[in-house]
């Protein structure tokens, strides 16, 4: 979940584009993992690399073909554009795979490790570990490589980056692609844990907006911590209230943050 938010945060932070199709991209990542697992017998924990690559292409194509044309238009138009893309992606998944929730079987998902009195679900542990590793890798990419630096430069000041010779359009496409690749990987990694259906996309989109706002727009660390925070808050809500009320906790949190700290807990810029 955190990884999804990290991808969203990257897209928003760099391009100020609100990607409403985010959750649906994740669902496509999940279905790709399912196809790989059932047709080719590739375990999702290896298949996520393929999913990430496929989503990178999709993300870069959406950026190049659609968002690029209206990058200077008011924010509302971008929201509507991505809403259109979300509708297309969600219902294309519905057409292709049907409405029934499915689940990817991974031999690892059934395994459990006993560590003294504790038992650990291997699938969840592995998902968490890969998510942490990918976030760290993304961090290194953004701060230690030339391409990463130009992404951050374009985010900070697109005109300035253009002046010093950065191909801003290419950088945008890469950033959008990397963001989409993150959700693709996140989708593939959560596919063995969580049953999924095309309708999941919308709630994932909303949940990741939630996390990004709470953690702070454009801050990768914030998105990661925000993801953990929201999960913990929801779990506590499920324990102390009814399980079906757990989303209420995160939405109430979202409203409070929006009103009192719209830049998020870790964001630097005010909107």
């Amino acid at each position: 979940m955190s990884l999804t938010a990290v991808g969203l945060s990257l897209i928003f932070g760099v391009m100020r584009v609100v990607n409403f199709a985010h959750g649906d991209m994740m669902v496509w990542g999940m279905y790709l993992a399912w196809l790989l697992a059932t047709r080719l017998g590739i375990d999702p924990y290896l298949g996520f690399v393929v999913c990430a690559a496929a989503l990178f292409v999709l993300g870069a194509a959406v950026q190049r073909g659609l968002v690029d044309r209206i990058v200077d238009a008011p924010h509302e138009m971008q929201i509507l554009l991505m809403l259109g893309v979300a509708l297309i992606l969600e219902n294309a998944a519905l057409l292709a795979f049907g409405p029934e929730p499915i689940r990817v079987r991974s031999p690892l998902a059934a395994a459990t490790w006993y560590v003294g009195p504790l038992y650990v679900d291997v699938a969840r542990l592995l998902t968490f570990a890969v998510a942490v590793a990918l976030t760290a890798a993304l961090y290194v990419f953004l701060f230690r490589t030339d391409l990463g630096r130009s992404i951050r430069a374009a985010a900070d000041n697109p005109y300035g980056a253009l002046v010093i010779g950065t191909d801003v359009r290419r950088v945008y496409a890469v950033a959008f692609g990397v963001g989409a690749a993150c959700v693709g990987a996140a989708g593939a990694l959560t596919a063995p844990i969580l049953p999924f259906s095309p309708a999941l996309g919308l709630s994932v989109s909303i949940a990741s907006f939630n996390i990004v706002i709470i953690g702070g727009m454009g801050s990768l660390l914030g998105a990661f911590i925000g993801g953990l925070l929201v999960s913990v808050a929801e779990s506590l809500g499920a324990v102390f209230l009814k399980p079906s009320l757990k989303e209420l906790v995160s939405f109430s949190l979202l409203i409070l943050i929006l009103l009192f700290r719209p830049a998020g807990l870790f964001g630097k810029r005010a909107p």
Partner: protein
Amino acid sequence: MIWLGLAAVAALLALPAVLGPYALTIVINILFFAYLGQAWNIVGGYAGQLSAGHAAFVGVGGYATAVLAAETGLTPWIGMVIGAVLAAALGGVIGYLGFRFGLRGFYFVLLTVAFAEVCRIVVNNWERVGGAVGLYITFTGDPRQMSFQDDRAWYYFALALLLLATAIVWTLERRRFGIYLTAIREDETACEALGVDTLRYKLLAMMLSSFLTGLAGAFYAYRYSSLQPNAIFGVPLSVEIILRPIVGGAGTLLGPIVGSFILTPLGELSRAWFGQGGWHGAHLIVYGILLVAVVLFVPQGAVPWATERLRRRGRGNAPEGARTRQGRA
């Protein structure tokens, strides 16, 4: 222009006489969604505050009406107004918080979505009003219980709602209030500098819009004889409400109506067409493609695009003034 409008109304009044039952159902949906779009248009189009949580007002209006009828036996015709008042109160709370704390653009969108989702979850867990199962309304065929044997009654009900909302918006356009709203959309900071109480006008627009949307709740509940929290408070309904004015032209009198006449039949026909082959969801792909196309090629919507075309043809060259609104929703 006025004569053309009157002619259109007369045509709409006479229309049920020539329509078959299936066509009549489609036209009822066209009118109903045009009404919802027109209600949204006040705050989303004229004032430029993109609310993506209007389903909340439909839900509050519908639930208030149905629960009052079930618990106290109050006729839905009065319950509908009470429901709309409650919806307006909710709109007031959301609007006050959002505008007072200066949330704009995407942040306002998210706030409205969050409130609608909170409503959905609360109603889902509130057993007294049916919980996740929802409420069902028994068919009585009694007009006093807002239950009609004849679909033509629903047609005139929807038409009356649409005419009401359109008359309100038409009046708004000619009043200072409406002009303030347009000015706020175009440049809010300049408005404040000129001494316009922007908070007050945005709030009034939000409450008027949510009141009208609340009225639609009763129509929705009694027409479909059921209320499901996930459907009536859900984000998909909010999106349906927004789509029509955007496609037709947000912030124009005829935008939501034209948008509904384009989108609703397209949606219904593709649903029927693809649904036969078991291709559910295909009509939403059509909506998605249309939305992307509108944003990319006619961002101002169909009505402003068409009027500009007509004006150009009339004068032979493009007037500069017609382009000022381009690119704004």
